[in-house]
């Protein structure tokens, strides 16, 4: 299988002190990977680099076999931001209006959204089980439902890669679980490659196929034994589970 993401000898920092130091990893087509790590380890910075918002100074990033500096196929990359639920709350738009907005590459500059685009939006909403809420105002939906609409917004373009930043932030534990189930289903049935930055390893570990841990500027892939060790460590601290379920908490990986 080909690599969707290839990071090689990447060093990046906002100041002279690098946040990410000489990191390298690849994500293959069909992977469902979680990127975990404590606060300040560079998860958000890595995501910004993968989204082309920051330019790598040392090392390289390749997306879909193309150097990120020259990458043009952004419509093939779906991104669900951390504050998606917060952004959606109170915004006066229906679920189908928000999903169809992401069809921009298909619709084109200055052209109006047509019925066929709205139909595509409804199909994407059906993929995430939200077809009955197409005409609902996004602000009237629950946090979990809003997050599903955000997924549909990404899926409407049939992306090759979906990047999610803390997708369970602001979502209750049962909605988080059903979100993970949905992501696993999309990965399994549609072959969608998913990379998810998360604090919630306790719940996410049951669904992802790979776990990459960012610690002290480097990336280490955790195997099942190491993940089990992390989980057993957390179960000794019952409060931790509550905190991580909504993404508010911080995991301390003792390695």
């Amino acid at each position, binding site marked *: 299988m080909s690599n969707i993401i290839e990071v090689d000898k990447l060093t990046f920092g906002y100041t002279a002190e690098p946040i990410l130091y000489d990191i390298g990893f690849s994500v293959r087509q069909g992977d469902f990977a979680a990127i975990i790590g404590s606060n300040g380890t560079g998860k958000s910075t890595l995501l910004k680099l993968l989204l082309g918002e920051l330019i790598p100074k040392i090392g390289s990033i390749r997306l879909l076999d193309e150097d990120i500096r020259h990458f043009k196929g952004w419509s093939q990359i779906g*991104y669900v*931001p951390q504050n998606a639920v917060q952004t959606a709350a109170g915004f006066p738009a*229906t679920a189908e*209006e928000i999903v169809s907005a*992401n*069809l*921009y590459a298909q619709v084109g*500059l200055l052209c109006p959204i047509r019925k066929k685009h709205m139909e595509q939006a409804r199909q994407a909403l059906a993929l995430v089980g939200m077809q009955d809420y197409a005409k609902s105002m996004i602000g009237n939906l629950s946090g979990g439902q809003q997050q599903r609409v955000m997924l549909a*917004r990404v899926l409407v373009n049939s992306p090759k890669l979906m990047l999610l930043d803390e997708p369970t932030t602001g979502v209750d534990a049962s909605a988080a679980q059903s979100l993970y189930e949905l992501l696993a289903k999309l990965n399994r049935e549609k072959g969608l490659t998913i990379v998810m930055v998360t604090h919630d390893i306790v719940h996410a570990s049951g669904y992802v196929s790979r776990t990459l841990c960012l610690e002290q500027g480097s990336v280490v892939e955790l195997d099942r034994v190491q993940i089990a060790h992390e989980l057993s460590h957390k179960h000794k601290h019952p409060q931790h589970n509550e905190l991580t379920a909504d993404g508010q908490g911080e995991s301390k990986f003792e390695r």
Partner: protein
Amino acid sequence: MEIFQYDFMIKAFIVGILLAVIIPCIGIIVVLKRLSMIGDALSHSSLAGVAAGLVMGINPIVGAVVTCIAAALGIEAIRKKIPKFSEMSIAIVMSAGIGLAGVLSGFIKNAANFNSFLFGSIVAISDFELVLVICISCAVLLAFVLLYKELFYVAFDERAARLAGVPVKAINFIFTILTAITVSVAARTVGALIVSSLMVVPVACAMQLGKSYKQTVLYSVCFAVGFTIVGLVVSYYARLRPGATIVLVGVICLLLILLVKWVAELSLRSKKAA
């Protein structure tokens, strides 16, 4: 009707209705980008341009347009430099605009002319100003319709819009120019101190009732046109300042909508409890 016997009132209605169509189109994007005070900052900055125009002997509206564009670009630039405190950019530009207007107004010989820009003078529109408003309204409306989906997506989520291929920088730049032009023209008619209210109040009313983005846009325009017509009629018969009356009609309408919604929610809750 007696009110339509006068040319100046017919002009006032034409200009008022045209502005009532374009101001909420700009207003809805401004509100959704959480930049509601931008209208205030730009209209205050336009006063600096008006003062500069009057001092230098050029058309004050041209002066207002130039300073408004400069102020709008300044807000955008500062907003990018300090994205976490982006609302600060509005305060900085507004302070600079007020300061400059204050200093320059000291050099104006005919203070009454300058004062007419504070609360507007929609009933004293010249033929040149009428043509200017018609041209600008057509341009702004055309741009809004053509960039409808781009403006919507940028207002909702700039980052996702960029990933989807929307030329975010270009859209933001065009929108900034449209806002500046609209505010500077509106400042002459409804008044610099009132223009931001007209940008926000109809949108606030529409957001209480709209069931989609499209509906919210249409309702905003309908509310603004309604406020303008009612405001002009009331101001004519009650001999009040037209700009201020239009805004007060809007605020009263918003309060009524909120009151009706509150009562409806209360009765729904009591029905459920019963």
